[in-house]
């Protein structure tokens, strides 16, 4: 399949690459040595591959790389670009909201999306937004606590 040149913004920086149409966002990001978004289930169900496209969380494993053309893509690596952790990242640490850490970037990004839409989320909001992120280590109680802590810190 013939490759296409795409231009997009990656973590605030204008970039360009040539990529075949069957490759997904995860493969695209790996070209830029970004590994925080991870393909796991390959079906958009686990959320390990979550990235933000124009500010909206998407499953990188189901998002074709060529769709990024002209868009702004943000990954977990962007959150501490200034050197400091985001409120959400700090809250995940404070609440012990992960074990193996493989799903954590996805949860962190989805929590950013949640708090953007609902700065003071209810338990129902939290469950609704994070329903598409799975954690096999089972740290859900700590994740709920972390989301609430992050919301409080931002308020």
């Amino acid at each position, binding site marked *: 399949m013939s490759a296409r040149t795409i231009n997009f913004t990656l973590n605030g920086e204008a970039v360009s690459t040539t990529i075949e149409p069957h490759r997904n966002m995860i493969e695209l990001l790996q070209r830029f040595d970004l*590994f925080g978004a991870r393909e796991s*289930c390959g079906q958009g169900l*686990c959320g*390990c591959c979550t990235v933000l496209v124009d500010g909206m969380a998407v499953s990188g494993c189901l998002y074709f790389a060529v769709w990024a053309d002209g868009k702004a893509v943000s990954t977990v690596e962007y959150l*501490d670009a200034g050197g400091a952790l985001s409120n959400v990242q700090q809250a*995940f640490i404070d609440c012990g909201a992960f074990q193996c850490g493989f799903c954590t970037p996805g949860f962190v990004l989805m929590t950013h999306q949640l708090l953007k839409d609902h700065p003071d989320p209810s338990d129902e909001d939290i469950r609704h937004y994070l329903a598409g992120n799975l954690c*096999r280590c089972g*740290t859900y*109680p700590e*994740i709920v606590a972390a989301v609430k802590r992050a919301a409080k810190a931002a308020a």
Partner: protein
Amino acid sequence: MNQIGRDIPRLEVRAKVTGRADYTHNLRLPGMLYGKVFRSTVPHGRILGIDTEAASALPGVHRVITGEDIRKLIPEPYYGPAFHDQPILALDKVRHVGEPVAVVLASDPHVAEQAVQLISADYEEMPAVYDEVAAMAPDILVHDVLRPAGTFADLKHLKGRGGTNVALDYHLRCGAVDAAMAGADHVIEHTFKTQQCLHLAFEPFVSIADPGDNALTLYTANQSPSFVRIEIARLFGWPENRVRVKVPYLGGGFGGKLYIKLEALVAALAMIVRRPVKIALTMEEQFYMITKHATTFRIKSGVGKDGHLVARKCEVYWNGGAYADIGPRVAQKSGFTAAGPYDIDNVSVDSYEIYTNRTPAGALRGFGVPQLVWAYESHTDLIARQLGIDPVEFRRKNLLRDGRPHASGTVLHDAAITEVFDAVVARLGWDKPFDRGSGTLRRGRGIAIGLKAVISPTTSVAIVNISADGSTTLYTGTVDMGQGSDTAYALIVGEVLGIGAEEVRVVHSDTDVTPYDMGTLGSRSLYHMGNAMRLAAEDARSKLRALATEAGLPEGTNYPPSEVFKKRYGMQAGNIIGTASFVPTYTPPDPQTGQSGDVTPFWMVGGSGVEVEVDTETGKVRILRLINAVDCGNPINPGVARTQVSGAAIMQLGFTLSEAMHLDGGQVTNASLADYKIPGIGDIPPMEGELVAASQHSGPFGAKGIGESGTFGVSPAIANAIHDAVGVRIMELPITAEAVLRALRAEAGRPLDDE
């Protein structure tokens, strides 16, 4: 400052929340080829031919490799921790659907994947056997002859045995079971079953082999790098020092990434093509790698008039799948606890590891114990109900106390069975009235408690290095897959050396650097490696004192380490290397009776209490409360310990209520997260956890393992609560709404139409 008991975040937290933590998944090497696996579509059959021509001709394909290519490199290409029964790629025969038959290598994984579709294989199909009890009959043989590895002395006698699917039969005899049963006032018998399910770590299996000159480096997501090194060296006929195994953080393990998985395959491929080879499985492929045993457990108890258990007979059938993996050890080393945490004078256990034509089964968070607790705690509850005794009172009457001998002959020490049980009962408020619901929504409560022995004997070796500026580095073969081992060891070393855990640097799992460790499994690490680490730190401390004496410093003075080095070497130079190994005492059990005075260095105890609400119209079970109490001794890092308990309980919740691999003709029909339902954030009930006050006196600073204990009681506590709520008994996992509805309708004399 005291380090033990400090509630600190894991040392690697920043790397994990920023997505920069190092996983094997991230690694790419120059010139690396990607391998994609062509798998068997039949459950059992003789290989007549494999046509790789079209695949090899696809542009971009480097090479296609079959089992015969590997046999040219390694004449006996069979691997495994307990048995050398698993071919690196199928040879002569396939034994389960999904078994690796060939591999396509290409620089682009998509090309390799496309080429796999162009391979075809011809099989002479053979009848297959899937059920563990059916496979006890030698009608269909999965293997012609047993091939035990030399690794475990107590499996050697099986060598050359043929005409059977029983890979291992384990027996325990204590007292006179038949006579006691005959004299009992009540004899009660049940059969319970568990389903095949799997680990499903979110970092699917991934391994990379980088070939050298008669040497190899493996980068792999694996829980037992020392074993990988030994096994790869054995396959190639090399000394251990030609194999280097590096493991970064693991994206989940749970027992799945134990021993050897993709490593032998990538190693062989890399040696054949002389280029680095990476194989990364998809989520679907994980269903064909390793699973949790399905089991059938026949349990029979004799009870006296006074409600005392006088005899218990256990027959456990473990569905091991097509290759043994660590299954024989599960059948044996957990099998011996099959009678539960009860004081019963007359016990017999017969535990069988059985080959079938399914995906192999190994260890999954509990090493078989959750399957056992499911049966014995469901059974115990049923006995109490049948005898009209309160289930809590019945258990209290029979619980094994510290200082009493377990059925294995080993006297129980530091097993807080009573404390854990009391904690669950108290938190649940067993004696207090509660809302039993009404109409179609009925509520009930249940409890359960389990006991596990850590696998023994196993060895851990540790190194503690003090640099000339006084900074400290520790070297460990333990794999940190989220359990917080790096942090726990830093706390232990910090405690001994009087420094903060945050100042300790942890180097983990690189066999060129880190010393031997048996494996990160079965909740053994904190105890074994923790003890080794404590001893290594003490060794470093005494060497530092010796160095001070050499430097002419007066004894008993408290110079900072950096000054001791400077004084001794004249500048910032030198090292102190503290080392230690730890292997607990152990007495091998008698081969006939399983009796041993010292069968395990420590016991784990976990109990659960639940309150459920059952919808009698749909069978849907809602968990209203889930309480878990465990004995982890004196916790090193209590916050991490608590998340281990709740995480284990949540995982077991999935195995209890929803997770099951469905088979059709040996094919897994739900091999994806879409169809295999694991717990999500919406499935988590209100939970409470308790680490009971306890101490493991032989453990490092009183601590012991914790990773599995939260799983033990969950499944039977739920079944017991459902019985309490609606009067029906579920005998088989998982407890789906459909299973409950079927039981309710059968109980009401109106079975569903298809029954």
